[in-house]
């Protein structure tokens, strides 16, 4: 690389440079690993991983134990409490008792999915509109870029549960607060994903539109949108899956959907209700994930064959 190497024959110079490069790489790895390990230990310490707690032994005496093995059996205890009694001879009666609130739960399940659907739609509109000014290669000027990026950052940095708390305060308890909360968060998340797709497009079609007398909007509509559409649809479906999960818990703070039932069951210690609700959400999410994954792969294949 430097001129001093010229005195050595090329292979000897290579050996020397290679050894140097290897040594640098080894030092880099060693320092990196040490930093990572130190950070790991520190965060474990801060999160009480090494805490010692007192447990009651079977013979009634108290003893000090490390918290991890002491706490794990309690997980089984909790799960055991949520398992309903289902006897073979009276299975349907027991099952009916387990899902005793099924009419309310079904209505709330529909509400949950609708919240997710509505919120995804609003999030797509906001995220799509802002993803073009928020893309470095497409923004008409740096001010527009800065403002749209900051807006998207704020929208997605605040968790949807926090947005829900704020909107419940504004619009009272109910699904409207949930829709708005998830929509704002989804706008931020989708806008970021979309704008990264936009930053990877081929700029030549846009130049072709510009050279023909097209405005900035024409360049986006004709040059950019056809290129990014398959990716946008794919990310939107992925977001819908995420939003169904969000909307099933967001009722915990009063923003509509099944979450409010979770809260009630927990505070009233109705443990079998919890397992029933968990099962309902689990099956719904699996069904939606499966459906949208099929759809997404079809769209991705479509994009590649084009």
């Amino acid at each position, binding site marked *: 690389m430097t001129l001093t190497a010229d005195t050595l024959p090329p292979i000897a110079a290579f050996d020397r440079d290679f050894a140097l490069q290897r040594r640098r790489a080894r030092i880099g790895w060693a320092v990196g690993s040490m930093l990572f390990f130190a950070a790991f230990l520190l965060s474990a310490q801060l999160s009480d991983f090494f805490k010692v707690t007192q447990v009651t032994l079977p013979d009634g005496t108290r003893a000090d134990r490390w918290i991890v093995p002491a706490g794990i059996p309690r997980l089984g205890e909790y799960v055991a409490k949520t398992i309903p009694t289902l006897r073979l001879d009276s299975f349907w009666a027991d099952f009916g008792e387990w899902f005793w609130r099924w009419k309310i739960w079904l209505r709330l399940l529909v509400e949950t999915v609708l919240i997710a659907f509505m919120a995804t739609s609003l999030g797509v509109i906001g995220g799509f509109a802002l993803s073009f000014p928020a893309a470095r290669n497409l923004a008409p000027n740096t001010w527009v870029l800065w403002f749209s990026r900051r807006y998207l950052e704020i929208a997605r940095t605040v968790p949807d549960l926090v947005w829900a708390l704020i909107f419940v305060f504004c619009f009272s308890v109910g699904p409207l607060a949930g829709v708005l909360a998830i929509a704002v968060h989804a706008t931020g998340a989708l806008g970021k994903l979309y704008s990264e797709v936009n930053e990877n497009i081929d700029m030549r079609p846009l130049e072709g539109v510009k050279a023909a007398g097209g405005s900035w909007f024409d360049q986006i509509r004709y040059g950019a949108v056809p*290129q990014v559409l398959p990716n946008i649809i794919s990310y939107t479906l992925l977001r819908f899956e995420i939003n169904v999960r969000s909307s099933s818990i967001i009722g915990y703070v009063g923003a509509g959907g099944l979450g409010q039932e979770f809260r009630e069951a927990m505070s009233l210690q109705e443990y079998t209700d919890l397992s029933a609700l968990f099962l309902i959400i689990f099956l719904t999410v699996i069904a939606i994930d499966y459906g949208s994954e099929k759809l997404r792969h079809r769209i991705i294949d479509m994009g590649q064959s084009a």
Partner: protein
Amino acid sequence: MSQHALTLSGLTKTFGDTNAVHNVSLEIEPGQFVGVIGRSGAGKSTLLRLLNRLIDPSDGSVSFGGQEITALRGRALRQWRADCAMIFQQFNLVDRLDVLTNVLIGRLAHHGFLSSMTMNFSDVERTMAIQALDRLDLVPQALQRAGTLSGGQQQRVAIAKALVQQPRIMLADEPIASLDPANATKVMDALAAINSEDGLTVLVNLHTLDTARAYCDRIIAMRAGRVMFDGTAAQLTDGVVRDIYGTEGLMEFNEAVTSTAARPHVTA
């Protein structure tokens, strides 16, 4: 179509320390077929982009029939870009849109926001587009996606798009550099036909001498941003080229891989 001359005076464009185009003054008469030759980096592309206002000059001015082009803004600028159609080396079509829509992009300068966003073109415009495609023998491909076409076909779609702009000047930036000789000939013939039938001024960047000599009324040779030669094809002998670019440069021009000569060119 129009009988205006394009006048460049003292046109200069600097990128950082380099003068891409340096003090170029030219008068392009209406109806001329002008070839601009020069090696890569000579400033040919920059010159064409300055004319179409894809980039703005550092100094100097361009005027068309007395209208000052360098001062245009907003809607008037978009109208000028439509008047001054541009064809690119890489075609710059939208691969995922069909050929017809790609051609209709040439009409966007005449559209408002809503009709443009909804891709709402009139029957008259569609007829114009189909007629333009027919001139280039591309009507059977009108509903195919542009990305599925061959390079030569894509470049002819780009010419059809330029035609529906109803331009007053046609600029082509290395239109055949990405094409094989047979397709290159088709594209150059199409440009020549437009020039002779419509009387449209055509300005083409080329980097092969034989193509320039075969098609152009007038040849402008550039080197390091300056015009080194401006005259007829007959005046641009190998001797003149050797004077401008040196023996090495002459070899390079004559041996360049992409040209319209379907057979290998034998250098003198």
